[in-house]
Protein backbone atom coordinates (compact mmCIF):
# COMPACT_ATOMS: atom_id res chain seq x y z
CA UNK A 1 0.00 0.00 0.00
CA UNK A 2 1.60 3.29 -1.05
CA UNK A 3 2.20 6.23 1.31
CA UNK A 4 2.32 8.75 -1.50
CA UNK A 5 -1.13 10.24 -2.06
CA UNK A 6 -0.72 10.49 -5.82
CA UNK A 7 0.95 7.22 -6.65
CA UNK A 8 -1.49 4.44 -5.90
CA UNK A 9 -1.16 0.77 -6.54
CA UNK A 10 -3.95 -1.09 -8.35
CA UNK A 11 -4.15 -4.86 -8.47
CA UNK A 12 -6.05 -6.10 -11.55
CA UNK A 13 -7.38 -9.64 -11.12
CA UNK A 14 -8.77 -11.31 -14.23
CA UNK A 15 -8.08 -14.59 -15.99
CA UNK A 16 -8.48 -12.88 -19.37
CA UNK A 17 -5.29 -11.24 -20.59
CA UNK A 18 -7.33 -9.03 -22.92
CA UNK A 19 -9.42 -7.77 -20.01
CA UNK A 20 -6.31 -7.04 -17.97
CA UNK A 21 -4.85 -5.13 -20.92
CA UNK A 22 -8.06 -3.09 -21.29
CA UNK A 23 -8.33 -2.27 -17.59
CA UNK A 24 -4.67 -1.24 -17.53
CA UNK A 25 -5.05 0.97 -20.62
CA UNK A 26 -8.22 2.75 -19.41
CA UNK A 27 -6.87 3.29 -15.89
CA UNK A 28 -3.48 4.59 -17.06
CA UNK A 29 -5.24 6.99 -19.43
CA UNK A 30 -6.83 8.62 -16.37
CA UNK A 31 -4.17 7.89 -13.75
CA UNK A 32 -0.82 7.67 -15.58
CA UNK A 33 1.22 7.55 -12.38
CA UNK A 34 -0.51 4.62 -10.78
CA UNK A 35 1.40 1.36 -10.46
CA UNK A 36 -0.59 -1.54 -11.84
CA UNK A 37 0.05 -5.14 -10.92
CA UNK A 38 -1.83 -8.10 -12.31
CA UNK A 39 -3.03 -11.50 -11.17
CA UNK A 40 -4.64 -14.12 -13.42
CA UNK A 41 -6.55 -15.93 -10.66
CA UNK A 42 -8.14 -15.42 -7.27
CA UNK A 43 -5.51 -17.60 -5.63
CA UNK A 44 -2.68 -15.57 -7.15
CA UNK A 45 -4.36 -12.35 -6.01
CA UNK A 46 -4.68 -13.54 -2.40
CA UNK A 47 -1.01 -14.51 -2.39
CA UNK A 48 0.08 -11.19 -3.93
CA UNK A 49 -1.93 -9.14 -1.45
CA UNK A 50 -0.45 -11.04 1.51
CA UNK A 51 3.03 -9.87 0.52
CA UNK A 52 2.31 -6.54 -1.10
CA UNK A 53 -1.15 -5.08 -0.37
CA UNK A 54 -2.33 -2.63 -3.05
CA UNK A 55 -4.47 0.45 -2.49
CA UNK A 56 -7.14 -0.72 -4.90
CA UNK A 57 -8.21 -3.91 -6.61
CA UNK A 58 -10.45 -4.81 -9.56
CA UNK A 59 -11.68 -8.37 -9.30
CA UNK A 60 -13.38 -10.60 -11.88
CA UNK A 61 -15.72 -13.32 -10.52
CA UNK A 62 -15.59 -16.26 -12.92
CA UNK A 63 -12.02 -17.51 -12.80
CA UNK A 64 -10.41 -20.92 -12.52
CA UNK A 65 -9.82 -21.96 -8.90
CA UNK A 66 -10.91 -19.49 -6.24
CA UNK A 67 -13.71 -17.29 -7.58
CA UNK A 68 -13.46 -13.52 -7.33
CA UNK A 69 -16.07 -13.07 -4.60
CA UNK A 70 -14.30 -15.58 -2.34
CA UNK A 71 -10.91 -14.07 -3.18
CA UNK A 72 -12.22 -10.57 -2.37
CA UNK A 73 -13.61 -11.82 0.94
CA UNK A 74 -10.23 -13.31 1.88
CA UNK A 75 -8.39 -10.17 0.84
CA UNK A 76 -10.72 -7.85 2.75
CA UNK A 77 -10.59 -10.04 5.83
CA UNK A 78 -6.83 -9.59 6.02
CA UNK A 79 -6.50 -6.17 4.39
CA UNK A 80 -9.73 -4.23 5.07
CA UNK A 81 -8.25 -0.97 3.75
CA UNK A 82 -7.94 -2.32 0.22
CA UNK A 83 -10.76 -0.88 -1.92
CA UNK A 84 -12.22 -3.56 -4.14
CA UNK A 85 -14.32 -3.24 -7.27
CA UNK A 86 -15.94 -6.43 -8.50
CA UNK A 87 -15.66 -5.99 -12.28
CA UNK A 88 -17.45 -8.89 -13.91
CA UNK A 89 -19.75 -10.21 -16.62
CA UNK A 90 -21.56 -12.25 -13.96
CA UNK A 91 -24.19 -9.58 -13.42
CA UNK A 92 -26.81 -11.49 -11.44
CA UNK A 93 -28.36 -9.82 -8.42
CA UNK A 94 -26.96 -12.42 -6.05
CA UNK A 95 -23.41 -11.40 -6.94
CA UNK A 96 -24.20 -7.70 -6.70
CA UNK A 97 -25.57 -8.35 -3.20
CA UNK A 98 -22.47 -10.33 -2.21
CA UNK A 99 -20.25 -7.50 -3.42
CA UNK A 100 -22.22 -4.97 -1.39
CA UNK A 101 -22.05 -7.17 1.71
CA UNK A 102 -18.27 -7.20 1.36
CA UNK A 103 -18.15 -3.42 1.09
CA UNK A 104 -17.01 -3.68 -2.52
CA UNK A 105 -18.42 -1.80 -5.52
CA UNK A 106 -20.04 -3.82 -8.29
CA UNK A 107 -19.33 -2.77 -11.89
CA UNK A 108 -20.58 -4.69 -14.94
CA UNK A 109 -18.37 -5.77 -17.80
CA UNK A 110 -17.59 -5.21 -20.63
CA UNK A 111 -14.53 -3.18 -19.70
CA UNK A 112 -15.25 0.26 -21.11
CA UNK A 113 -14.19 3.80 -20.34
CA UNK A 114 -17.50 4.22 -18.51
CA UNK A 115 -17.04 1.05 -16.43
CA UNK A 116 -13.52 2.12 -15.44
CA UNK A 117 -14.79 5.62 -14.60
CA UNK A 118 -17.23 4.00 -12.14
CA UNK A 119 -14.39 2.02 -10.57
CA UNK A 120 -12.14 5.08 -10.33
CA UNK A 121 -14.93 7.11 -8.80
CA UNK A 122 -15.23 4.49 -6.05
CA UNK A 123 -11.47 4.37 -5.51
CA UNK A 124 -11.10 8.15 -5.45
CA UNK A 125 -14.06 8.68 -3.15
CA UNK A 126 -12.11 6.99 -0.37
CA UNK A 127 -8.57 7.87 -1.44
Amino acid at each position, binding site marked *: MSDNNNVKTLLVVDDSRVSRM*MIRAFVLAKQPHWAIIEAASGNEAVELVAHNPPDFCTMDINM*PGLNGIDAAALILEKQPKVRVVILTAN*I*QGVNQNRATELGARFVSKPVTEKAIAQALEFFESVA
Partner: protein
Amino acid sequence: MNPLSDLHTDALTEIFNIGAGRAASSLSEIVGDEIKLSVPSIQFCQSSEVTAAALLIDNLHLGTVRQKFNGLFESTAMLLFAEERALEIVRDMMKSELSIEDLAEFEQEAMCELGNIVLNACLSAMADILNITLDSSLPTYSVDSSEAIVYQIICEEDQPFVLLLHINLEIEKHRSQGYLIFLLSYSSLTELISRIDGFISGIQ
Protein backbone atom coordinates in the same frame (compact mmCIF):
# COMPACT_ATOMS: atom_id res chain seq x y z
CA MET B 1 -3.82 -24.58 -39.07
CA ASN B 2 -5.52 -22.45 -36.44
CA PRO B 3 -5.77 -18.85 -37.68
CA LEU B 4 -6.61 -17.65 -34.17
CA SER B 5 -3.69 -16.55 -31.99
CA ASP B 6 -3.76 -17.00 -28.22
CA LEU B 7 -4.78 -13.36 -27.89
CA HIS B 8 -7.65 -13.82 -30.40
CA THR B 9 -8.83 -16.84 -28.41
CA ASP B 10 -8.56 -14.94 -25.13
CA ALA B 11 -10.55 -12.02 -26.56
CA LEU B 12 -13.26 -14.30 -27.96
CA THR B 13 -13.50 -16.27 -24.69
CA GLU B 14 -13.92 -13.02 -22.78
CA ILE B 15 -16.52 -11.75 -25.24
CA PHE B 16 -18.52 -14.98 -24.95
CA ASN B 17 -18.25 -14.93 -21.16
CA ILE B 18 -19.73 -11.44 -21.16
CA GLY B 19 -22.54 -12.86 -23.30
CA ALA B 20 -22.92 -15.81 -20.94
CA GLY B 21 -23.13 -13.38 -18.01
CA ARG B 22 -25.95 -11.49 -19.72
CA ALA B 23 -27.75 -14.74 -20.53
CA ALA B 24 -27.35 -15.99 -16.95
CA SER B 25 -28.83 -12.74 -15.65
CA SER B 26 -31.88 -13.13 -17.92
CA LEU B 27 -32.30 -16.82 -17.10
CA SER B 28 -31.98 -16.21 -13.36
CA GLU B 29 -34.92 -13.80 -13.62
CA ILE B 30 -36.93 -16.55 -15.32
CA VAL B 31 -36.17 -19.29 -12.82
CA GLY B 32 -35.92 -16.99 -9.78
CA ASP B 33 -32.64 -18.49 -8.69
CA GLU B 34 -28.94 -18.13 -9.31
CA ILE B 35 -27.71 -19.46 -12.63
CA LYS B 36 -24.14 -20.43 -13.21
CA LEU B 37 -23.33 -20.10 -16.87
CA SER B 38 -19.82 -19.82 -18.19
CA VAL B 39 -17.75 -20.45 -21.29
CA PRO B 40 -14.53 -21.91 -19.91
CA SER B 41 -12.87 -22.58 -23.24
CA ILE B 42 -13.22 -22.31 -26.99
CA GLN B 43 -11.72 -24.38 -29.77
CA PHE B 44 -11.30 -23.75 -33.45
CA CYS B 45 -11.34 -26.45 -36.11
CA GLN B 46 -12.43 -27.20 -39.65
CA SER B 47 -15.80 -28.88 -40.03
CA SER B 48 -14.18 -31.81 -41.84
CA GLU B 49 -12.29 -32.57 -38.60
CA VAL B 50 -15.41 -32.62 -36.44
CA THR B 51 -16.41 -35.96 -34.96
CA ALA B 52 -18.73 -36.86 -32.08
CA ALA B 53 -15.63 -37.96 -30.16
CA ALA B 54 -13.89 -34.64 -30.85
CA LEU B 55 -16.94 -32.82 -29.51
CA LEU B 56 -16.74 -35.07 -26.43
CA ILE B 57 -20.41 -35.79 -26.97
CA ASP B 58 -21.20 -39.01 -25.16
CA ASN B 59 -24.96 -38.64 -25.29
CA LEU B 60 -26.90 -40.39 -28.00
CA HIS B 61 -29.51 -37.65 -28.32
CA LEU B 62 -28.97 -33.93 -28.10
CA GLY B 63 -31.40 -31.06 -27.91
CA THR B 64 -30.24 -28.56 -30.52
CA VAL B 65 -31.32 -24.94 -30.90
CA ARG B 66 -30.27 -23.45 -34.24
CA GLN B 67 -30.22 -19.85 -35.26
CA LYS B 68 -28.67 -18.03 -38.20
CA PHE B 69 -26.93 -14.71 -37.72
CA ASN B 70 -26.01 -12.31 -40.48
CA GLY B 71 -24.58 -8.85 -40.86
CA LEU B 72 -20.91 -8.01 -41.25
CA PHE B 73 -20.38 -11.76 -41.14
CA GLU B 74 -22.68 -14.74 -41.27
CA SER B 75 -22.85 -17.70 -38.95
CA THR B 76 -25.04 -20.67 -38.19
CA ALA B 77 -25.14 -21.05 -34.40
CA MET B 78 -26.09 -24.27 -32.63
CA LEU B 79 -26.64 -24.71 -28.90
CA LEU B 80 -26.42 -28.37 -27.84
CA PHE B 81 -27.51 -30.03 -24.60
CA ALA B 82 -28.11 -33.67 -23.75
CA GLU B 83 -31.85 -34.23 -24.30
CA GLU B 84 -32.52 -35.39 -20.74
CA ARG B 85 -30.70 -32.37 -19.33
CA ALA B 86 -32.65 -30.12 -21.68
CA LEU B 87 -35.89 -31.36 -20.15
CA GLU B 88 -34.56 -30.76 -16.64
CA ILE B 89 -33.69 -27.21 -17.68
CA VAL B 90 -37.23 -26.78 -19.03
CA ARG B 91 -38.65 -28.04 -15.74
CA ASP B 92 -36.57 -25.51 -13.79
CA MET B 93 -37.53 -22.72 -16.17
CA MET B 94 -41.23 -23.54 -15.72
CA LYS B 95 -40.89 -24.21 -11.95
CA SER B 96 -42.89 -27.32 -12.73
CA GLU B 97 -43.53 -30.44 -10.71
CA LEU B 98 -44.48 -32.31 -13.89
CA SER B 99 -42.60 -35.46 -14.76
CA ILE B 100 -39.94 -35.32 -17.45
CA GLU B 101 -42.28 -37.35 -19.71
CA ASP B 102 -45.17 -34.89 -19.29
CA LEU B 103 -42.88 -31.94 -19.89
CA ALA B 104 -41.94 -33.11 -23.35
CA GLU B 105 -44.76 -31.15 -24.97
CA PHE B 106 -43.26 -27.88 -23.67
CA GLU B 107 -39.73 -28.80 -24.64
CA GLN B 108 -39.77 -27.23 -28.10
CA GLU B 109 -40.97 -23.83 -26.98
CA ALA B 110 -38.91 -23.63 -23.78
CA MET B 111 -35.68 -24.74 -25.43
CA CYS B 112 -36.17 -22.24 -28.26
CA GLU B 113 -36.52 -19.55 -25.60
CA LEU B 114 -33.43 -20.77 -23.74
CA GLY B 115 -31.46 -20.91 -27.00
CA ASN B 116 -32.71 -17.53 -28.06
CA ILE B 117 -31.52 -15.99 -24.77
CA VAL B 118 -28.11 -17.68 -24.76
CA LEU B 119 -27.32 -17.31 -28.46
CA ASN B 120 -28.47 -13.70 -28.69
CA ALA B 121 -26.66 -12.75 -25.47
CA CYS B 122 -23.41 -14.17 -26.86
CA LEU B 123 -23.83 -12.64 -30.29
CA SER B 124 -24.98 -9.27 -28.98
CA ALA B 125 -21.93 -9.14 -26.67
CA MET B 126 -19.77 -9.81 -29.72
CA ALA B 127 -21.60 -7.18 -31.78
CA ASP B 128 -21.32 -4.56 -29.02
CA ILE B 129 -17.66 -5.15 -28.29
CA LEU B 130 -16.52 -5.48 -31.90
CA ASN B 131 -18.82 -2.63 -32.92
CA ILE B 132 -20.77 -4.51 -35.58
CA THR B 133 -24.43 -5.21 -36.29
CA LEU B 134 -25.82 -8.73 -36.43
CA ASP B 135 -29.37 -9.83 -37.20
CA SER B 136 -30.77 -13.18 -36.19
CA SER B 137 -33.34 -15.59 -37.59
CA LEU B 138 -35.95 -17.24 -35.39
CA PRO B 139 -34.57 -20.19 -33.43
CA THR B 140 -35.56 -23.75 -34.28
CA TYR B 141 -35.28 -26.76 -31.99
CA SER B 142 -34.81 -30.43 -32.72
CA VAL B 143 -33.54 -33.53 -31.02
CA ASP B 144 -30.88 -35.28 -33.05
CA SER B 145 -28.37 -38.03 -32.65
CA SER B 146 -24.75 -36.93 -32.21
CA GLU B 147 -23.92 -38.59 -35.56
CA ALA B 148 -26.66 -36.57 -37.29
CA ILE B 149 -25.36 -33.34 -35.79
CA VAL B 150 -21.81 -34.07 -36.90
CA TYR B 151 -23.13 -34.94 -40.38
CA GLN B 152 -25.02 -31.61 -40.54
CA ILE B 153 -21.85 -29.72 -39.57
CA ILE B 154 -19.75 -31.51 -42.17
CA CYS B 155 -22.40 -30.89 -44.86
CA GLU B 156 -22.35 -27.11 -44.35
CA GLU B 157 -19.89 -26.69 -47.20
CA ASP B 158 -20.32 -22.93 -47.33
CA GLN B 159 -19.27 -22.70 -43.67
CA PRO B 160 -16.24 -24.96 -43.31
CA PHE B 161 -14.88 -23.39 -40.11
CA VAL B 162 -16.10 -24.23 -36.63
CA LEU B 163 -15.83 -22.26 -33.39
CA LEU B 164 -16.69 -24.66 -30.57
CA LEU B 165 -17.50 -23.20 -27.16
CA HIS B 166 -17.75 -25.42 -24.11
CA ILE B 167 -20.57 -24.27 -21.85
CA ASN B 168 -21.16 -25.01 -18.18
CA LEU B 169 -24.74 -24.43 -17.10
CA GLU B 170 -26.01 -24.90 -13.57
CA ILE B 171 -29.63 -24.18 -12.73
CA GLU B 172 -30.68 -24.87 -9.16
CA LYS B 173 -29.57 -28.44 -8.48
CA HIS B 174 -28.91 -29.38 -12.08
CA ARG B 175 -25.54 -29.21 -13.71
CA SER B 176 -25.23 -29.55 -17.41
CA GLN B 177 -22.52 -29.19 -19.96
CA GLY B 178 -23.41 -28.06 -23.40
CA TYR B 179 -21.80 -26.78 -26.52
CA LEU B 180 -22.22 -23.69 -28.56
CA ILE B 181 -21.10 -24.13 -32.13
CA PHE B 182 -20.61 -21.36 -34.66
CA LEU B 183 -20.16 -22.34 -38.29
CA LEU B 184 -18.34 -19.74 -40.36
CA SER B 185 -17.44 -19.23 -43.98
CA TYR B 186 -13.87 -18.30 -44.93
CA SER B 187 -14.85 -14.68 -45.56
CA SER B 188 -16.78 -14.50 -42.29
CA LEU B 189 -13.83 -15.95 -40.37
CA THR B 190 -11.48 -13.45 -42.02
CA GLU B 191 -13.83 -10.59 -41.14
CA LEU B 192 -14.15 -11.80 -37.56
CA ILE B 193 -10.35 -11.99 -37.13
CA SER B 194 -9.95 -8.55 -38.68
CA ARG B 195 -12.46 -7.12 -36.21
CA ILE B 196 -10.74 -8.78 -33.25
CA ASP B 197 -7.37 -7.42 -34.46
CA GLY B 198 -8.87 -3.94 -34.60
CA PHE B 199 -10.29 -4.36 -31.11
CA ILE B 200 -6.96 -5.60 -29.67
CA SER B 201 -4.88 -2.92 -31.40
CA GLY B 202 -7.13 -0.31 -29.78
CA ILE B 203 -6.02 -1.38 -26.31
CA GLN B 204 -2.33 -2.08 -26.88
